[in-house]
């Protein structure tokens, strides 16, 4: 259930080379439904259950061959897929699923409760990202062939979202333990991978699964997903008709696509962009212990200007942690910290830092020069001086988690408020590097986890309001993604999911 594009920070930092692309998605060629070619910014990691990478650019590779238990609807909420119904029970300590009947895997094996059990246990055991998202699942019980019940060790409101992502992929139980599964997937999905026509690490060709249960949702007979890392090549491919669609979070590619008269559909991609103020206990930068200093940083942030100059306008400014449309979103919080330099300076003075202080931050300038410049400037406006320490891409996340930086610019992409809470707000959270624990916040979080139905929204709003008031973060904007398609292809993106699902691409009506 976790799907973070924080990983994108890593990838981008490490890979100067890949810095200009960010794509994956699909579209159809000029209304014909014969074939459809998507460009993706990365090749698939592995088709093995539990090893499949966090959702994002690799989704289409997997969605072509695997069905998930649930999928994400255009409203951003889980919807039926292989599981037709689901219910949280036992005070949030169990999740009961009703399974679709008559579905078979392409090797002939039947999809049933035993297959679900096998897949979920496999994913959990693999200890990958998909497995981590199943952390709350204690056991899987086969009720009957079409019903399974997941026993949880704690309430996990994010579990359904996880089952709509990489944790929910279902492979044939017969192939589950084969080492070949990593490169030769056997699922029940709309397409079958044609290994003969595919080139590992480069071009993946899929042909229609004639027995698929929902063929109408996938109008194209052949699907090709092409790994293309270069932006110019992608645009040229789209222009020359060799590529039908792609998805990206790179504003440059969006600009280029717009300049090239391609269809561009932007949507909320699920990421929270801005400054993450980790050192709330003041271990590295004592000043940050003072909530007024953290608030001052928020007031000193000119979000509109940053979005325009740094993000090229791609995104929605926000000062709260949950995005619009999500549970826990509170419209009022968007204006919690209007740009007010005087107020910021006043708060700094009250906290005893009128003359500011200095901090050491990781140098992200190789990948995020504009972001870093904006951050430097805004910190300087309240007399906080920054010294940057060189760092390499693959050390970034480790150093953040290891508590090396009092704060830094970051983008964390999550699929639900619960995921963000789990990642950043509890004393167990990996992105709570100094293990700040605030009893008040802990209480609110427990309440949010325990809540069901409409009460969830209220409880999450409380959490939201608290961390905004306490200025745990200084968010800039909710990240926007874009789906780019050639003429004749429509796309209906899902908000909060950075890459539109495969079924989102349809011939233009």
């Amino acid at each position, binding site marked *: 259930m976790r799907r973070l594009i924080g990983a994108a920070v890593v990838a981008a930092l490490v890979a*100067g080379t890949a810095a200009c692309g960010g794509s994956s998605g699909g579209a159809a060629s000029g209304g014909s439904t014969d074939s459809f070619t998507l460009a993706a910014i990365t090749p698939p990691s592995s088709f093995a259950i539990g090893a499949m990478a966090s959702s994002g650019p690799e989704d289409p590779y997997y969605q072509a061959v695997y069905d998930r238990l649930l999928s994400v609807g255009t409203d951003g909420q889980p919807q039926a897929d292989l599981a037709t119904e689901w219910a949280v029970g036992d005070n949030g300590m169990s999740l009961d699923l009703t399974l679709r009947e008559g579905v078979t895997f392409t090797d002939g094996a039947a999809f049933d409760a035993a297959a679900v059990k096998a897949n979920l246990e496999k994913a959990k055991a693999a200890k990958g990202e998909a497995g981590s998202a199943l952390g709350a699942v204690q056991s899987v019980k086969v009720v009957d062939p079409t019903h399974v019940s997941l026993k949880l060790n704690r309430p996990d409101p994010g579990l359904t979202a996880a089952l709509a992502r990489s944790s929910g992929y279902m492979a044939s139980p017969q192939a589950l333990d084969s080492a070949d599964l990593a490169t030769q997937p056997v699922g029940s999905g709309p397409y079958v991978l044609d290994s003969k026509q595919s080139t590992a690490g480069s071009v993946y060709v899929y042909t229609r699964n004639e027995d698929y249960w929902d063929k109408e949702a996938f109008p194209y007979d052949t699907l090709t997903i092409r790994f293309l890392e270069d932006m110019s090549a992608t645009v040229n491919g789209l222009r020359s008709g060799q590529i039908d669609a792609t998805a990206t979070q790179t504003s*440059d590619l969006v600009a*280029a696509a717009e300049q090239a008269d391609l269809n561009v559909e932007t949507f909320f991609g699920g990421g929270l962009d801005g400054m993450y103020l980790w050192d709330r206990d003041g271990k590295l930068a004592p000043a940050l212990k003072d909530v007024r200093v953290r608030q001052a940083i928020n007031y000193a942030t000119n979000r509109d200007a940053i979005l325009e100059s740094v993000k090229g306008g791609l995104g929605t400014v926000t000062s709260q942690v949950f995005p619009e449309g999500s549970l826990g979103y509170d419209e009022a919080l968007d204006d919690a910290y209007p740009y007010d330099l005087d107020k910021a300076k006043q708060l700094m003075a009250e906290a005893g830092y009128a003359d500011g202080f200095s901090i050491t931050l990781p140098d992200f300038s190789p990948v995020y020069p504009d972001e870093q410049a904006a951050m430097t400037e805004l910190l300087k406006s309240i007399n906080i001086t920054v010294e940057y320490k060189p760092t390499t891409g693959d050390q970034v996340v480790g150093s953040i988690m290891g508590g090396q930086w009092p704060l830094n610019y970051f983008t964390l992409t999550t699929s639900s408020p619960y995921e963000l809470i789990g990642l950043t707000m509890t004393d167990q959270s990996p992105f709570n590097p100094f293990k700040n624990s605030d009893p008040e916040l802990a209480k609110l979080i427990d309440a949010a986890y325990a809540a069901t139905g409409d009460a969830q929204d209220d409880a999450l709003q409380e959490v939201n309001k608290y961390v905004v008031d306490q200025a745990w973060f200084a968010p800039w904007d909710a990240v926007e993604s874009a789906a780019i398609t050639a003429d004749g292809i429509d796309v209906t993106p899902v908000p909060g999911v950075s890459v539109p699902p495969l079924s989102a691409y349809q011939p233009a009506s």
Partner: protein
Amino acid sequence: MSLPTDPTTAATLGHAIDPEVRRAGLVKRLVRIPTAVVALVWLVVVVAAAVLAPLLTSQSPTASDILDALAPRGPGHPLGTDGVGRDVWAQLIYGARTSLVGALIVVIVSLVVGLPAGLIAGYFRGRFDGISTWIASLLMAQPAIIILLVVLTQVGRNTALAMFVFGFVIAPGVFRLVRASVIAVREELFVDAARVSGLTDPRLIRRHILPVVVAPTVIQMSQIFGIAIVVQAGLEFLGLGSANQASWGGMLNDAFQAIYTAPRLLVWPALAIILTVTACALLGNALRDALGGAPAARRRRRRKELSDTGSVTVSTSPDVADDVALQIDSLVVSYPGAAGDREVVHGVSLAIRRGEVLGLVGESGSGKSQTAFSVLGLLPGAASMSADRIQFHGEDLTTLSGAAMNRLRGRRIGYIPQEPMSNLDPSFRVGSQLVDPMRHHLGLSRKDARAEALRLLERVGIRDPERVFDAYPHQISGGMAQRVLIAGAVSCNPELLIADEPTTALDVTVQAEVLDLIRELQAEREMAVLLVTHNFGVVADICDTVAVMRDGRIVEVASADDLFSDPQDAYTRMLLESSVEGAPARKPLPVIGATR
């Protein structure tokens, strides 16, 4: 991205450049080459723009103003702005800084690494040479970009570092060039002489080796400078350059994103790169020309040789006697020089009768070889020649077309060159070099030509014709090679044989045998022979008639007997008297106080 590491040019450079021209004022020479001036001016402009960037624009090259994106040219933005509102002009001149600094890093690193290593390896040879040469070939086998990829991804994007590493990658090119130049000059006698003079190694390197290495290295540096700019642009294009500074490669990359809406953005960085690199290449070429003596007049008119004789006039001289094989009237040969044409043969006239051996004698520079080549139509391309007449058995060679002349050469006029080894094509077997002309001129079948060639080889005194026929030139001795060349010259039964110092490069014992051979063949076939030589012994041995040449003119023509017994011209007399042959031997040294 090509690396200038080709050892061939490296080796030739070492030789081609005459260090003495440094004295003549390199700058003065350069300024005389128009392309060099243009290139220098452009480079100075680029350097000045880079250095004075803050004075030339008040804009920051990296500050973007999204509201002012893709602004047209206008006040404040002399070249407009790019897709995110950065000032193009500022990017261009600050980008020049990045490019020039990067290229400079490459030049310095490659020089610091390659020059000393090349000097030491070339001068001292031995183990260091072996190891460093191996390391160089190891580095040269690495695709530069892969090295850069591996290194840069370990340490992060950084243009300066990339260029630093690239300096190492390209250093073997410098190393090889320096080493080749050093080895070439190391064999020069003046280095031996300096060593015998007691110079220490460091002093010898500084005084005699380094000056020779400087010129080719400077040329190579200008090329490396250009290549570094291209490579740097490529790296920036790949996204491996520092992101927080303006660069031409980065501009190109950005421009491609806007290629459909603002193609003009492509123009500036592309022009900057192309022009600057072109300037570097042109400067390199100009330096080479200036240092090596420009081959400016080279091949000015290749076809001029025989077809264009300018002063062909209807012969006014008396008719040629029947038994005259070759008659030359008023032959003039000149070469273009810095101060107008330089005449080396001034109106030479000669006649050779059938069966006569005419010796054309003179010291170096007298024009005797030029005269011989004029008859063959084989003067170097730059030479121009005219004559009232060069009549060969009734045909005036000055009026013949190239093709008609080709039918005569080899068929009716044979030629024996001076240096046997350099006159056989090293890549072809001796046999084929004999067979080809016979098949061409006489229309012999392959088999017949081979039989004839073997017969000829035997005739010129080669004991094992079959082996020599199948041998490559490097497998036979000089004397044998000269016999092969003689066989080639007479293979089509020519009526006239032109021999240019045919024995000068040979040992005396071989010389005697070769002269015997020429004499026999001449008698056997009643050939007329024009024999060019400086050796009066050779003349006395073989010639019927002698023409003495001095400074492009014939000073005396006489029968061999008359010439030696009663030379008429003072110069001839002086030459004859200079000979140490037959002079009294030196007296033995008295033994001082010896009681032995």
